[in-house]
């Protein structure tokens, strides 16, 4: 009886007060919309990757462009095409143009740091992506390479450390001096140290080049046909290892562990058994985070340089068993 009474009172309250609540909500939504128009619409976001021709930076750029178009944000890309000095010049030139947000992909920890500070002093929000610099700006979005390396090494140990496996593995580094490579190596080494039974028969660098990776892997496979696992730093480079394994007739025997931002044809390679496991940090998700952070900063009204937000990208270990049509992103062919 009491419950029925309570229910009736609640119903009465809803009927009588409903329109007011809705009106209040309407006002809030309207306020937010107005605030949005003032703070976000028509603002300029400039994106400077190390090069705009690699799949990862393309996925980021195309996705951000799509979101920006929808939100009414002016989105611009500046392409230094792997030229570090040019990237520094582009960044400095952009500071003069005074956009509202800069999204910058550092080539190393050092070179852009002074210009990033200068940008924030000039009143521009700065978001650094995938590779942090010495300078801590408003936001950082990206992978934690040492955790990624440790996670990959754990998987390698699991696959190659058991009974029946040869315990022999090989590593194919990217560019040994990049912070990303160093981080992965550091994480991986911390895991391998705990497993002395794992024998690293080769540790070479291919400088992100698939042909170099192919040639080095062919030589290593020829000397160690009983190799169990090959761990590489990027799927574009490691596709060369996959071809060397295939050409040596060792497909299915040598397990290739790689990582990327969900770039085709890595998923195709997983399905065909050329890659064993791909540690994907979804680039589309990263791009969403970049744009969300830009929009948040614009509405925060904080002085650029006062906030230090870090958003670390999730890593999705993907194998032939759990690869789906959305694991990898197909780029538009311009």
């Amino acid at each position, binding site marked *: 009886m009491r419950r029925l009474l309570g229910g009736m009172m609640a119903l009465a309250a809803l009927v009588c007060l409903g329109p007011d609540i809705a009106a209040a909500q309407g006002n809030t939504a309207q306020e937010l919309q107005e605030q949005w128009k003032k703070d976000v619409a028509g603002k300029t976001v400039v994106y400077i990757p190390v090069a705009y021709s690699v799949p990862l930076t393309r996925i980021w750029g195309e996705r951000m462009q799509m979101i920006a178009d929808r939100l009414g944000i002016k989105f611009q890309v500046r392409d230094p095409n792997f030229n570090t000095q040019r990237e520094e010049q582009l960044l400095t030139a952009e500071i003069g143009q005074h956009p509202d947000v800069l999204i910058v992909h550092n080539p190393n920890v050092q070179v852009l740091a002074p210009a990033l500070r200068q940008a924030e002093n000039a009143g521009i929000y700065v978001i650094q992506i995938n590779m942090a610099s010495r300078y801590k700006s408003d936001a950082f979005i990206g992978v934690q390479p040492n955790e990624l390396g440790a996670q990959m090494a754990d998987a390698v140990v699991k696959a190659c450390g058991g009974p029946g496996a040869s315990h022999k593995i090989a590593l194919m580094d990217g560019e040994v001096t990049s912070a990303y490579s160093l981080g992965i190596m550091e994480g991986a080494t911390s895991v391998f140290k705990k497993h002395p039974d794992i024998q690293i*028969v080769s540790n070479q660098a291919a400088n992100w080049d698939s042909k170099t990776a192919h040639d080095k892997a062919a030589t290593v496979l*020829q000397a160690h046909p009983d190799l169990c696992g090959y761990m590489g730093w990027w799927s574009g480079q490691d596709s060369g290892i996959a*071809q060397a394994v295939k050409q040596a007739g060792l497909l299915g025997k040598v397990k290739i562990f790689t990582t990327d931002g969900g770039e085709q044809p890595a998923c195709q390679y997983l399905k065909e058994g050329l890659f064993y496991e791909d540690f994907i940090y979804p680039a589309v998700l990263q791009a969403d985070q970049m744009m969300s952070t830009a929009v948040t900063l614009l509405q925060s009204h904080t002085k650029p340089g006062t906030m230090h937000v870090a958003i670390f990208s999730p890593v999705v270990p993907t194998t032939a068993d759990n690869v789906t049509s959305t694991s990898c992103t197909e780029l538009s062919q311009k």
Partner: protein
Amino acid sequence: MPPGSSEDVRINAAGGVADVALPARTPSRLKRLTQEQIVLITTLVLAGVFAVLIPGFATVQNLLTLLNSIAVLGILSLGAAIVIIGRGLDISQVASLAIGAAMAAVVMRAGGSIPWAIFCGFAVSLAIGLVNGLVIAFIEVPPLFATLATNLLMFGLAQIFIVGSTLLVYVPASAASFLALGHSVARVPIPVLIFLGLALLVHLFLSRTRMGRFIYAHGDNPEAARLSGIPTRPLTVLEYSLSAVIGYLAGLVLMATLSSIDTQIVMGTEIFNVILVAVLGGVSLVGGRGSVLSVIAGGLLIGVMLDGMTLLNLGNDTQNIFRGLVLLAAIVGDNLLHPRDEETARHGD
């Protein structure tokens, strides 16, 4: 003696040195060694050291792996050698490789037949060679600048009209018969067979045909070649076209090996390795000197170093130091045995 084969030129050069510097003595046996022989000896010594240090280095299978790793570089260097012997330089050769191959891959992806795809790629690469040759021969732009410019131009055009934004083109799995080019026949990788076959063809062309001998004459003394009636302008166009087409062949081999082609290679430093292989083996940048054997010697040295150092699992910095030292040793050795001849030395020698 006509300025034909490399043998003739070499004897002339060596004889000149002996006449000027040591008029009373005939050159010692050591001094008669040509640069490619020096490089081959260096390679053999190095291979010997590796064979002692690394179990499994001196095996047939490893030799084949080693040859496979230099096949693409070797093919490119054969093309580069033709141009350099004719006193030219083709910086855009890697563009012919990547853009031609990318064209073929794009046609395959669009569902075109493999022969049609290969023809389309061929046409694109040949066009690059023809443009180079025409600009250098008829507008008389120095080859370094001309090919540097076409390299950029073609890369940009290819980005817009052929490969699209990503620069990386994958060969579709349906083109399995094309991808078989990257496999082996009776354990011998097909790229190695293509390299050796092409080396034989280029050798016969350079040393046995009139056109080949004209190329030596053109490189040795372009003015004399022209005055003696050799059509040097069409010859220049031929040299650059051959370089581009051979580059394209290397591109097909590379693409079959990796089942993809990364056009970013055009902006990389691969061309320096190509020129290094040729020049290291004795194809002089002043023109008219060197042969296919030079390319093979230079390629083998690079291949032995790469293979041995990978097997030794040396770090990147150690590899660079070692590579630099061996290259320096080969060049210094050549300089000691063949001092510069002040009477015939040219600017840039």
